[in-house]
């Protein structure tokens, strides 16, 4: 659960700037692991965005004569897949799908979950019971099982993957947002605002949200790596992105049979998923430490 830490008095830190966000930025600038991971993320994002301009080949055109070329083959630096398609180009294009399928559900979860959680936390009573009990039901399923079950029922395709994963992440964000709201709601300054005549919208907008968003944002950022692993995992099972599109999990799936021919080319899409997910984990760890929020 999120333990809320209000912006600190940072005067004690020598050389530290005054405002909370500047302190956070100052701490991040002194955290090499987070900086390197952040740089890696920027690189991954750029290579996905720029794929059409930097990919050496068309990701979907192969040649039967150059199937399963090894890493370092001429004109195919990362080899080719089972249909003779250039691996480097497919990995670049694949990042687009994996990143979209992995990040969108967390963004949806963050938006919907924050609204539901703040409403439940602030209203309390029956509203809170109904919302939170409904969310508890989704906790009856481990995340992997819930995602696979929903997309198994809905069928393959990007929209269904996004729906299935959003359903996984909304309840998680709701719990964090609700518990943070309840904590902040009890603080004296909120009572003071209410006493001085602030309406519910003002309290939510100016007094609550700023202090609830921190923990929720940090929590959501920790979920991105899981979401990417799950999104690629669904495609790996044949439930997510459909062929012939390039997507890291799907590439891992179609290349699986080829490990007996060329062992290491099939490992590449997994390395891409691994690096991306690790970079997101390191950045969210750094963010959590810098913002002094415990989740």
């Amino acid at each position: 659960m999120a333990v809320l830490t209000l912006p600190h008095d940072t005067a004690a830190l020598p050389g530290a700037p005054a405002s909370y966000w500047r302190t956070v930025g100052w701490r991040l600038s002194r955290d090499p692991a987070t900086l390197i991971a952040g740089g890696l993320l920027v690189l991954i994002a750029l290579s996905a965005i720029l794929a059409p301009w930097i990919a050496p080949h068309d990701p979907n055109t192969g040649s039967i004569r150059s199937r399963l070329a090894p890493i370092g083959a001429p004109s195919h630096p990362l080899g080719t897949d089972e249909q003779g398609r250039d691996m480097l180009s497919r990995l670049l294009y694949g990042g687009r799908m994996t990143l979209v399928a992995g990040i969108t559900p967390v963004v949806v979860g963050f938006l919907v979950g924050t609204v539901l959680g703040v409403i439940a936390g602030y209203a309390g009573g029956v509203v809170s019971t109904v919302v939170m009990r409904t969310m508890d039901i989704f906790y009856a399923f481990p995340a992997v099982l819930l995602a696979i079950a929903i997309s198994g029922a809905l069928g393959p395709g990007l929209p269904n993957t996004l729906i299935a994963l959003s359903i996984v992440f909304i309840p998680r964000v709701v719990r964090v947002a609700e518990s943070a709201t309840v904590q902040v709601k009890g603080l004296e300054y909120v009572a003071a605002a209410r006493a001085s005549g602030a309406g519910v919208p003002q309290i939510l907008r100016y007094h609550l949200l700023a202090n609830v968003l921190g923990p929720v944002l940090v929590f959501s950022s920790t979920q991105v790596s899981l979401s990417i692993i799950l999104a690629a995992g669904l495609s790996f099972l044949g439930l997510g992105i459909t062929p012939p599109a390039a997507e890291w999990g799907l590439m891992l799936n179609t290349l699986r049979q080829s490990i007996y021919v060329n062992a290491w080319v099939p490992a590449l899409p997994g390395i891409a998923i691994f690096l991306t997910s690790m970079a997101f984990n390191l950045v969210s760890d750094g963010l959590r430490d810098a913002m002094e929020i415990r989740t």
Partner: protein
Amino acid sequence: MWAYIGRRLVLAIPTLLGASIIVFAMVHLAPGDPIAAVMPVDASKEQIDAVKKAYGFDQPLPVQYLKWLGRVATGDLGRSIATRRPVILDVRDALLNSLVLAVSSSLLAFGAGIALGLLAAFRQGRALDKVSSAVAIVGVSVPHYWAGIILIIVFSVQLNWLPAMGAGLDGGIVEYLRHMALPTIALGLIPLGVITRVVRSAALDILAQEFVVALRAKGLARRRVFTHVVKNAAPQIFTVLGLQFGFQLGGSVLVEAVFSWPGTGYLLNLAIFQRDIPVLQGVILVLATFFVLLNLAVDVLQTLVDPRIARH
């Protein structure tokens, strides 16, 4: 305390009912007709209607749900559309195989994770602590299905030491154990990372408390201080172990798919592609029930160990 445990038990009922509604609704979310998938394309309208009637698909949804729930309550999960076998039998066999894998991977991950986490906490900032942080971050970041493929490439394809597929059910206990080895490692990676991390931070929290300083100040041997720390960190660690064990059972779908391990995940995967709705429902329902009951058991045991929890 008993009132608290009683309330937890009662609260599990709506959760289970809710889960059953989700499982039931899942099938009706599915595009297309569940019957169309199994009927030949040239089946007549009458034939389709007859099959629908036989499965009860012609009745309104709430009626279908209540009838289904009634049958489920008596242990009847229906028959597989693909094999005509009672679903409960398939699920039972698969659950046993999944449990074996969940237990073996949990033992591996819990043992290694607790040891690594505690050692890291007592050697904070030293080389071993760095190793433990690396294990923790890799464990939670690695796509375990990919790790499974890497294990197959190394130990089955390159070294030819261990089998890559199936459970070796006909080959006796040694073959079964040999088939278990790689999926156990692949499935143990995530909990290894999570537990290393949680144990380290729990132990560090305790180490920072004043009573530990007092214990050290009075000259207590390091080993005795260690015992105090472990005892105080135990409740928090215990909760995480319980949750992780549940995740192992429900989360093994991808690993079972990689290794064709005949567990619930493999059965679920098969059911999805054959659009075998009763099997799909049965597997998910059984796993969800198991997961809820396991969480409940963890809660209750925790309250028994540490009665302060009931007061919150």
